[in-house]
């Protein structure tokens, strides 16, 4: 008899951490973006993606709303907005 | 069942002695159990090794308190210990000593003690003062427990080449030394 001892890869994809967001979420303005990729590097959920200037966005199913991307953005092109606001 | 107690200092080869003796009994088709008992677990400290042998597998695991035979590899141990403690009424002691007048405890009528200058034999044959095989030769002569041939077989199993040769010679000389004593 065995219990739950091993897990196969992919389990983090099924765990939608977007529900962890409390008040704010990032908004990608896509105006002054220089594609420096810093937001991608600091995202703890690796849920930001983009290819080229002003294309970056994130997957809100996994974004926990930590704000790291807004903090690191050298062009202030990502801002944290109230969760209620629908954009 | 026969019980043999070996007195030595750690590093003098008591375990080798016990295992050679056990192996000789093994070759004879008997069931020996040889085991060391360490004291302070460092070289030079007094220690014992035991051989218990029977015609059926030995189950008794205790140390040996009433030996049929004692083999004293280092006679200086007799200053601090009663190496003869518990020796059976008709027991035999084989002692490594060149001093023919070595002071021994008072023996009971049936008890015997044999002195073998095993280290001197070893220095001549092996080149180092390791008298174990000479003592075992002496043991064979003193007790008639084992033939010299079977002891040689055990030595051959344990040592190779030159070391084997010189140890066989040492065992032979130890054997002859006691045989000559007995003949007077």
């Amino acid at each position, binding site marked *: 008899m065995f219990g739950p001892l091993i897990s*196969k890869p992919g389990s983090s994809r099924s765990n939608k951490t977007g529900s962890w967001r409390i008040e704010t979420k990032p908004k990608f303005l896509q105006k002054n973006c220089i594609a420096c990729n810093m937001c991608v590097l600091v995202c703890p959920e690796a849920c930001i993606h983009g290819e080229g200037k002003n294309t970056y966005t994130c997957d809100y199913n996994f974004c926990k709303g930590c704000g790291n991307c807004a903090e690191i953005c050298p062009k202030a092109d990502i801002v944290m907005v109230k969760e209620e606001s629908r954009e | 069942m026969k019980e043999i107690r070996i007195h030595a200092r750690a590093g003098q080869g008591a375990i080798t002695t016990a295992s050679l003796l056990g*192996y000789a009994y093994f070759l004879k088709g008997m069931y*020996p*159990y040889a085991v060391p008992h360490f004291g302070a677990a460092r070289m030079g400290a007094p220690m014992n090794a035991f051989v218990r042998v029977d015609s059926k*597998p030995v189950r008794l695991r205790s140390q040996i308190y009433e030996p049929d035979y004692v083999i004293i590899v280092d006679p200086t141990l007799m200053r601090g210990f009663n190496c003869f403690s518990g020796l059976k009424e008709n027991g035999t002691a084989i002692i490594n000593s060149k001093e023919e007048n070595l002071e021994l405890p008072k023996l009971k009528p049936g008890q015997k003690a044999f002195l073998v200058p095993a280290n001197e034999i070893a220095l001549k044959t092996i080149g180092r003062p390791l008298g174990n095989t000479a003592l075992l030769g002496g043991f064979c002569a003193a007790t008639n427990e084992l033939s010299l041939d079977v002891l040689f077989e055990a030595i051959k199993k344990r040592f190779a080449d030159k070391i084997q040769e010189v140890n066989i010679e040492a065992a032979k000389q130890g054997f002859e030394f006691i045989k000559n004593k007995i003949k007077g």
Partner: protein
Amino acid sequence: MKEFLEGSLAVAKVIQLCKPGVVSAYPITPQTHIVEELAQMVADGHLNSQFVNVESEHSAASVVLGASAAGVRVYTATSSQGLFYMAEVVFNIAGLRLPVVMTVACRAISAPINIWNDQQDAVSLRDSGWVQFHAEDIQEAIDLHLIAYRLAEDKSMMLPVMVCMDGFILTHGIESIDVPTQEQVNKFLPDYQPLYKLDPANPLTMGPLVDPEYYMETRYAIDQTHKEALDLIPKITAEFSKVFGRNYNGLIEEYLTKDAERVIVAMGSVCGTAKEVVDELRAKGKKVGLLKITSYRPFPAQKIYEALKAVPKVAVIDRALSLGSYAPLAAEVKAVFFGKTKKPGRISSFVVGLGGRDITKDSIKEIFRLLTTKESACCEYIDLKPELLKENYE
């Protein structure tokens, strides 16, 4: 073939025949000779294993854990403080259901430091989830290693096994041993096929964090598997005897217990001495016997019940303590009979041979004698020296 072999060397020879892919160990008296010999075999090309030298027992256990997780047969050995230093990993190995086989050369625990034999080290880790076998003599010790691999790697088990052999008495004792051949071992022990393994081509995680929703089931499963092992062990030992011709029950051995009025229960090499005493007393017409426990984990409660239910007086020998409580084996034997109508009139508890204090025939005779006088409910110490207890540091 019969050989005259030191216990440690005999174990090394049998492990060589089992062909572990990885061996890792750290030397500690009285286990050292085993791994020293295995290291030599690897160096000489007589054993195709990776021998991983490590800086501690914690690492040795971690290496065999990792190697076993990667899907190879592994081996390690330790003793006393070394086993305790491993303890954290020992529990992990069982928790991960890895079929590691380890020899424990049983030795006392510090402080005060003592290198000689008792069973406090192994007994202290009885709750780790490992199967625990205790050997009476060297032949049984080496045979139990073969049985251990077979049991550990059974697809229904996947649990680690400790083979416990009394330090010095068996590890350094030299006896006539029937050494198995490679053909026999191949016949009895198939190649190890892991149920799952760490493999970059098929990635998986072993032992991830499990929250309260999952943890209890993993522990329950190990406990259940131990109970299933009680049925599996006799099946494996029956197959063992077909191949090797030596019979073991694997759980318990009843030595002249059938009509006995007094029976000693014990584990390990002391059983040999006890058998000698039983024979001597039987020759004098005394109805005495011995119940040897080979498998301490799983604990063969039902077998013990059957063996002892009609015995008037039972003495349990412990060579380890649970300080501040009942002696461990005695407590468990008593638990077997709680609530039962058929049971021994008396179950006495004796502690003997701690830290290498020699267990003589007289020690065993004294236990049989005391058994007739009164019930020793909690730890009667045999061969204790009361004069040493007068030390006063005020």
